[in-house]
């Protein structure tokens, strides 16, 4: 069956300007990818590689110093970068929703849980009064919060971290969005609560068919939940592949290094760290951005930026010497 493309990002480039535009931080540099409806995509990489900026560019919620300088973001065939602010307000929350890392920051401490879930619904739907309350209760049950009648009048500080993150989840799905972006959504949760939350997201995805984009640095989450993986390094996509291929035969040295550096309970053998530190995005090394940390790098890598090489269907790597599986 042919899948429908939900989101198509083409040549997206987002820069941050500092010191009166004398310094340019290339947060995202010519990034293109597609997400099919109903997919579970993982976007992995270290902090500062541009994952969160990518999400902010798609939703057009960049901080004032950031600017998307070129590219296209086609959502259901329409370019989000051409939309007016008013049109974007109607898309955010209703068609594209987002769950952020820290539920204490994304919930407002001076409004009750019911008011905060209701706000999104009032903004985007015609539900009012009793039917609104009814819908809020349904949503709380959908994220497995018991006793919604009582919870609806409670404040964020009365809840535990896991519960708050569920509330954020219920707000995100309240208008049945087509695309749900989870930016490190479980990083602050305890492991047992994290597993509960991942299961919840998977169930939601299967019940509603929402498309999930999971931004994370935790390879365990990728293995547990996702079907496709995009690896980012220094603002560029360095590898994309189905999840099995990423774990079985990573083509880019950076992906390989990430896998070698991850801890696993199944295997306590000595791990290999990645030497060096992520590069400064304002002064990237010449050639391939990964070359100073790459053990396979040669003069070619230090002089010229590698192209993205297609290795198989839905597989590519941005490297001069990709490992062919």
């Amino acid at each position, binding site marked *: 069956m042919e899948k429908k493309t939900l989101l198509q990002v083409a040549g997206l480039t987002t820069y941050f300007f500092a010191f009166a535009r004398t310094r340019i931080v290339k947060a995202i540099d010519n990034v293109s990818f597609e997400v099919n409806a109903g997919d579970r995509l993982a976007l992995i990489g270290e902090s500062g590689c541009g994952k969160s900026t990518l999400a902010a560019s798609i939703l057009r919620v960049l901080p004032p110093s950031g600017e998307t300088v070129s590219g296209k973001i086609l959502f259901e065939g329409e370019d989000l970068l051409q939309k007016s602010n008013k049109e974007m307000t109607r898309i955010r929350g209703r068609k594209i929703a987002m769950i952020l890392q820290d539920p204490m920051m994304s919930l407002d401490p001076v409004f009750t849980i019911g008011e905060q879930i209701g706000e999104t619904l009032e903004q985007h739907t015609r539900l009012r009064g009793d039917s609104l309350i009814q819908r809020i209760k349904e949503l709380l049950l959908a994220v497995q919060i018991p006793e919604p009648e009582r919870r609806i009048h409670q404040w964020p500080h009365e809840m535990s971290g896991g519960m708050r993150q569920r509330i954020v989840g219920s707000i995100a799905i309240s208008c049945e969005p087509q695309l749900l972006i989870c930016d490190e959504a479980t990083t602050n949760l305890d492991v047992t609560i994290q597993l509960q939350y991942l299961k919840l997201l998977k169930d939601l995805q299967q019940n509603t068919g929402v498309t999930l984009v999971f931004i994370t640095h935790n390879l365990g989450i990728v*293995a547990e939940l996702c079907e496709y993986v995009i690896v980012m390094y220094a603002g560029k996509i360095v590898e994309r592949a189905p999840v099995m291929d990423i774990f079985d035969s990573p083509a880019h040295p950076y992906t390989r290094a990430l896998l070698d550096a991850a801890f696993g309970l199944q295997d306590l053998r000595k791990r290999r760290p990645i030497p060096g530190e992520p590069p400064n995005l304002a002064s990237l090394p010449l050639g391939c951005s990964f070359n100073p940390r790459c053990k396979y790098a040669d003069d070619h890598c230090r002089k010229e930026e590698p192209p993205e090489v297609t290795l198989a269907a839905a597989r590519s790597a941005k490297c001069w010497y990709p490992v062919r599986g």
Partner: protein
Amino acid sequence: MEKKEFDYLLRIKNLKVHFPVKAGIIFDHVIGWVKALDGVDLTIKPSQVIGMVGESGSGKTTLAKVLLLLEKPTKGEVLFEGKEIHSLDDWELKAYRRTIQAVFQDPFASLSPRLRVQEIITEPLKVSSNLGKEELDNRVGEALHRVGLDTGLRRVYPHELSGGQRQRVAIARAISTDSKIIILDEPTSALDVSVRLQVVHLLMDLQKDLGLSYLLIGHDLAMVAYMSTDIAVMYLGKIVEFAETKELLSNTVHPYTQALMAASLPDHPRNKRERAALSGEIASPLNVPPGCRFHPRCPGKKNICQGQEPSLMAVGKNHWVACHLNNAGSQDC
């Protein structure tokens, strides 16, 4: 001076820390107790790396604070060379503070932004000893060298360093006093994936080279298992299982430890397995459930679990478990 040898560095006996909860503005009165630690026994031996895992609210950090003399225990004692650490005289206190050091989670918060690296590293030395300037300089150079930093960095301020470098400075500070025990409270959770392993390996190398003991607090069981010789699993202020790392992973007895292991994520999509997520959340330490404190979430609970609190019992060599379900019949390991 006569010195008695002890086979342990620190011995913690039935340690309890209860915080009062008060109500009322003028005439405040205690309305309840938060039982952060509720009877912990633990012995730290030379060159031992004890990993401590458990969810937030299980009392891991409170234990670290007691050992660092930042929190007074309500009950119980911590013995250092045979003496209770809260009744040491000034001289002994200085020796104790030199012996025990800490590295915290966030190197952005644990290093003073107004001090240079040199001053940060020498501060504990200045407080706990009276070394001359030259000796202090040598110590800084040596400590920086040991953690793999360029000695030229002694003149810079923390904001000029990256996260990984800062954590190395924090480690240099901890080893500069010739300490024997270092408390590592989530030492790598604020670091990037690629830098994290570098710091973990640095800590493991230092432990081997200097014969240090660590009390490693973490919530990532895989990382803790990678570094530790022994693991203590905490739940609501108590240790519920203690064993050597290999033994704990291969012969897990307590249902909570089993749940923690099941909840850790797979390292390959092929190792993905169907498992039941542990239901519910950790109870509030204000309201500890009667009987076994884990029973409301335990999948195999029996009647006895609700009425009687289990105590730590040996189920194998150096393997202790506090669980009614395993008191009988599991002696054969």
